[in-house]
């Protein structure tokens, strides 16, 4: 065995991603949902970096930059929305933000 294999990184990334997905669906706290979304994004970052190292191609790392930027922007906007909703409803329960339902 010569060092960690690619497949380990990929497996870890998959596990993290799945945890993130499940968390988005299950969690009722908006902040927790956001943290899970960040977790998903980071899992994907890990995948990109793993492949970049394995194929010795720098494109993967470039893409990580982009993903990180987008994640940051999206987190800013999302948190702004959450703060506004919190101000209106005094609750961070996402089930209660369902005014658009039938």
């Amino acid at each position, binding site marked *: 065995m010569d060092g960690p294999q690619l497949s380990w990184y990929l497996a870890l990334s998959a596990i993290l991603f799945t945890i993130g997905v499940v968390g988005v*669906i299950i969690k009722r706290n908006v902040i927790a949902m956001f943290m899970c979304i960040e977790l998903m994004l980071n899992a994907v970052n890990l995948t990109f970096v793993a492949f970049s190292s394995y194929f010795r191609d720098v494109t993967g790392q470039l893409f990580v930059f982009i993903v990180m930027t987008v994640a940051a922007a999206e987190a800013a906007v999302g948190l702004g929305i959450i703060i506004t909703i919190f101000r209106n409803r005094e609750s961070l329960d*996402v089930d209660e933000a369902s005014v658009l339902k039938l």
Partner: protein
Amino acid sequence: MSETNLLSLIIFAPLTGAAINWFMGRRVRSEKFIGAVACGAVAISTIVAFYLAFKPDGALQSEAPLLDHLWTWIQVGKFRADFGLAMDRLSGVYSLFVTFVAFLIHVFAVGYMRGDKGFYRFFAYLNLFMFSMLTLVLADNFLLMFVGWEGVGLCSYLLIGYYFDRNEAGDAAKKAFITNRVGDWGFVMGIMLVFTMTGSISFFEKSAYGVTSALQTINALTPDPFAWHMLWAGGITTIAIFLFIGATGKSAQIPLFVWLPDAMAGPTPVSALIHAATMVTAGVYMIVRCNAIFSHAPTAMFIVAIIGAATALFAATIGLAQNDIKKVLAYSTISQLGYMFLACGLGAFVAAIFHVITHAFFKALLFLGSGSVIDGMHHEQDMRRMGGLKKYMPITFATMLMGWLAICGIPIWAGFFSKDEILWKTWSATALGANAAALPNGAAKALWIVGAITALLTAVYMTRLMVMTFWGAERFREAVTHDDQPGHHGEEHPYAVHEPHESGWLMTVPLIVLAVLSTIGGFIGVSYALGSLVSSHPTNYLERTLEPVLASPAGETPTGEVRWLSPPPAPHDGEPAAAIIGTRQSSAEIHSAEEVLHERLLALTSVLIALAGVGLGFAIYSKRPLLQMPSLLNNKYYVDEVYDATVVNPIKSGSREVLWKFFDQEVIDGLLHALGRTVTEVGGLVRYLQIGFVRTYAAIILFGALALIGVFSYYGVRILLR
């Protein structure tokens, strides 16, 4: 030939009159104007018809019909129907009396309908009826004749139901139309079969338009044998039976006669025009027009004869027991129509047309006379409340006397000659149709007996009518209650004894004219045997005019004479053929002395039967005018009740229970409701897509992503592994 465009004037003058009265009549409000327009339109038709018939080389003299092709109506593949008119000898003769009698009835109606609120409507309908009837008569193909056929049915409905505020009028109108419709089914089947068999539905050949004559084509085929299975074999006999079914509907024969007595709910001029003189004879006209078809179908002819005779007797027995003056005349009409069909069935087409003509005269006279009586009696129609009217209504009495003598068959009045000719042709019939199929043994004599009994009954019930109305005690002076008056139309009078009065000249002059016609009208068709009693060269004008266009009864074809059916087998249409008739043998050679003697004896028998009937009527009814007739007859053998129970009510309850409650409400509506419910259910599921529930959105995104990944990986692996 620009002259024959006059033919279209015959039918379009009444149509124009109807249009004028319909659109302008309500505003004009002048009875004189409306009456003048209506009568004038029919007068124009009459004058043109007479001119076209009697002019030199007119319809009654020329061998070829006068044709007037107005426009091509339908032309699809081989099927062609033109709006074209044709006046040949048969339709020429027919249009003469139809227009003239109709004119007299229009004049009468102007007097009879005075003061009625719907005066303009009545005359618009009446003129529309004339348009339809003349289209029927002058049509040159089956389909246009059917248009006229339907048109007269429509106008009959409109006119029977003229007093639309009375339930029984509306019911009677519907009954008439629906019963006619049943017959029309047969007629249309017949037309379609004619087209299938011959490729044409035209009566006449019009080579300039590429139209062949269906009748000539059928005439050239071999006649069907006399066998019952021919009725459904799909050949000429089937066509004939279908056409006859149509005729039974329109001309009120068994089993479709039930509408005609109820049709008396309409105004009396309507009963006279439509249900006595013209519309009901349309069936006879159609059969005579199609005599080529019938003479090739002896089985059908036999059935026609049997039904005609049966109807004649059946209706006569019912007429004997009716108390409403118009109902007696209605059943009398059915009975006389039976005679006409009997004649057609035995191949005596000329005799049938003769009886149509004389019947038009005397039946119209009797109906109009009864209208005059009803009007003079302030709308009383029950004969039990009449009596002794002859001194109050002398002109009506005298004219109805003529009509009575005519219908009973007393010589020299018109009815005698025509009825006697039918009876003679019945007695002497030996074979049917063009191939002289033998009649069953004794059938002719049996039919004659039925006809003779009917003649006796006719004389009896007509005498009863005359006695109850004009002679005897003045029963209208007795106080009676109003409860038992079913047919009391018009304004309700507070009951006082109204003096009956004679009618004005508008009503009596037509009566007089018709009385004259009923007296002398028979002389157009005196048969040889009778005419030779008084003259050495008797001419049967009607027979001479119609013979070349009609098939003659089997076994009676004189030799040396070419017979054809309209038009003659000429190369050009509208022109007489080059070599027409061979030398015509003198009448004396055609009729053997023995035959003549038999005919004279039979005529004597007819006269004796008629006189016996009259005598019997006087003997019984002048003593006891209110004699109660058997209730079976009075209730018309409960035919209407039987029809109600077997046909009408099953259809009504079948429609209500099965078709409406089950099929419409449960199946069709159920289908619709199920469809709606399905849409609602599916919608209920689909709405989860937009539920507003964020986590559901996340889940859906996840599943969508998984699906995409699955698809891509599946195809990717396939590519990799290839």
